[in-house]
């Protein structure tokens, strides 16, 4: 008890004695503010559960169970041996949901890894340099923004063949433009700040100003936006999966699972409904988390 108290005191010390303490203290204060928000904590719980499930999938269920077809047991309702029931090919739905979390997480992670640097890079450059660079970059952004996401994804899948990688590329291509705009808007609000002028006056290069001064200020809103967009990304991935353009059978993917159950929806509801619930819960979880992060960021800036 005493130990935790001193930790807390060290973190909340108004006069930290090292960079590390200052930074950790800042994070801890943000965490305290976040913790007060019940809905945000629910979101964090859901997202953590998803990540843990994905990481521990082989420990939770036998990896072979996700693709093992036991045709004699096909379309069995949820029971103690098959918690979420069995699908039309005799595969355990629970195992497929657990391994499907991996697929979902991979898609989400890859899309973030592409969208964040691309959106930030283009937005920062456009906002910082202005003039013709801004004009060119923003017109390119507009062009990408005008593509309907699913149609572009369909075209991509048609050209490159279906698969998770191509689904990720298709989603990322249509997701980054709003991030570029967001980063540009944030950059413009800080571009004329006195602390930027001070950095210029000290001889900081453009690259240094962008990376060390402006980017840290844009990053929170980009991350929040990304978290809020996760629901949309997961749904698009599921939609592509539903159309058979993302993960290929027999790999477990929630959208494809919903799709596969649609002929038996009335008789054997669990085949479609349970992956549907998984998609729904995950999307809501990301949304709540994003809302909570936004509240923390707002309270800190005011």
């Amino acid at each position: 008890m005493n130990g935790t108290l001193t930790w807390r005191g060290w973190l909340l010390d108004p006069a930290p004695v090292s960079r590390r303490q200052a930074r950790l203290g800042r994070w801890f204060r943000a965490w305290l503010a976040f913790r007060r928000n019940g809905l945000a904590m629910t979101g964090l719980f859901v997202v953590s559960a998803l990540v843990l499930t994905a990481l521990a999938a082989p420990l939770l269920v036998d990896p072979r169970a996700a693709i093992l077809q036991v045709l004699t047991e096909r379309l069995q309702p949820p029971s103690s041996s098959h918690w979420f029931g069995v699908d039309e090919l005799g595969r355990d739905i629970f195992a497929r949901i657990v391994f499907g979390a991996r697929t979902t997480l991979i898609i989400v992670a890859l899309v973030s890894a592409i969208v964040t640097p691309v959106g930030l890079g283009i937005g920062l450059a456009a906002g910082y340099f202005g003039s013709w660079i801004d004009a060119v970059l923003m017109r390119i952004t507009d062009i990408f923004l005008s593509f309907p996401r699913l149609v572009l994804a369909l075209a991509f899948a048609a050209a490159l063949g279906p698969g998770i990688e191509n689904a990720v590329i298709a989603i990322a291509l249509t997701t980054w433009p709003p991030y570029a705009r967001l980063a540009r808007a944030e950059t413009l609000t800080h571009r004329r700040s006195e602390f930027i002028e001070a950095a210029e006056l000290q001889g900081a290069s453009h690259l240094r100003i962008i990376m060390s001064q402006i980017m840290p200020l844009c990053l929170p809103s980009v991350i929040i936006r990304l978290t809020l967009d996760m629901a949309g990304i997961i749904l698009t991935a599921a939609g592509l999966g539903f159309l058979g353009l993302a993960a290929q059978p027999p790999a477990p993917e929630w959208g494809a699972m919903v799709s596969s159950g649609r002929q038996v929806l009335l008789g054997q509801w669990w085949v479609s409904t349970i992956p549907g619930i998984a998609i729904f819960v995950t999307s809501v979880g990301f949304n709540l988390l994003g809302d909570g992060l936004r509240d923390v960021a707002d309270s800190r800036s005011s």
Partner: protein
Amino acid sequence: MIVLEHVTVSYGTGIGRIFAASDVSFRVEEGAAFGLVGESGSGKSTVLRAIAGLIPHAEGRVMLAGREMPMRRSTSERKMVQMVFQDPYGSLHPNQTVDQTLSMPIAIHKLGDSDRRISSVLREVGLGREHRYRYPHQLSGGQRQRVAIARALVLEPRILLLDEPTSALDVSVQAEILNLLARLRQIHGLTLLMVSHDLAVIAHLCERIGVMSNGSLIELTSAEALSSGRVTHSYTRQLLRSNRGFDRSGAEIVDAAS
């Protein structure tokens, strides 16, 4: 130390061209303190920014320490002249500790020995070890302005530009900052150029004073002349009267154009 010849800053072209500063010339000797007074929009801050090299399209000549300075400066040319801004809330990066703010200029100019430099410059501006790892929002207005001064000093400049350094502060804090600036000037032999709308503040710190209105330098005078009321321009006289507190005679009601 500072020589300005025909410095002009304008925006737009043709009939819509607006002059933020037109044909401003003056010189400041080494180690002297020069003040520019004027109201908002008089061009005083524009002149300061032109000297700092923050306005690349400024016209005219700026010479610092006998060297002609291009309006676009190189990294090494930046080191000689530093600036303290008006708003201590806006001039510090909100996400960086005092330590980070002060280490950036050291890293840019590869001065080395960062730890010692930071602690000595903090001591000089009257901040203790306990302030070093704080974020700006954990500091008072006066402390932030001290950090801003420390950031300017860490590069050991010969010229310090001050853009209304105390107008956002309480009067008791203003006195502390003015005293600090006077002391630093003496210790380092700094040449100061201060901009303010407050005649008393300018006259306290500076010996020579320029009065600006509508982008032009309309009068060059000294602190003594100003204090004893020996000024020639009617606008300066009006400024002087306004600074002495509320006075009905100074308030002829003119309906200026919107």
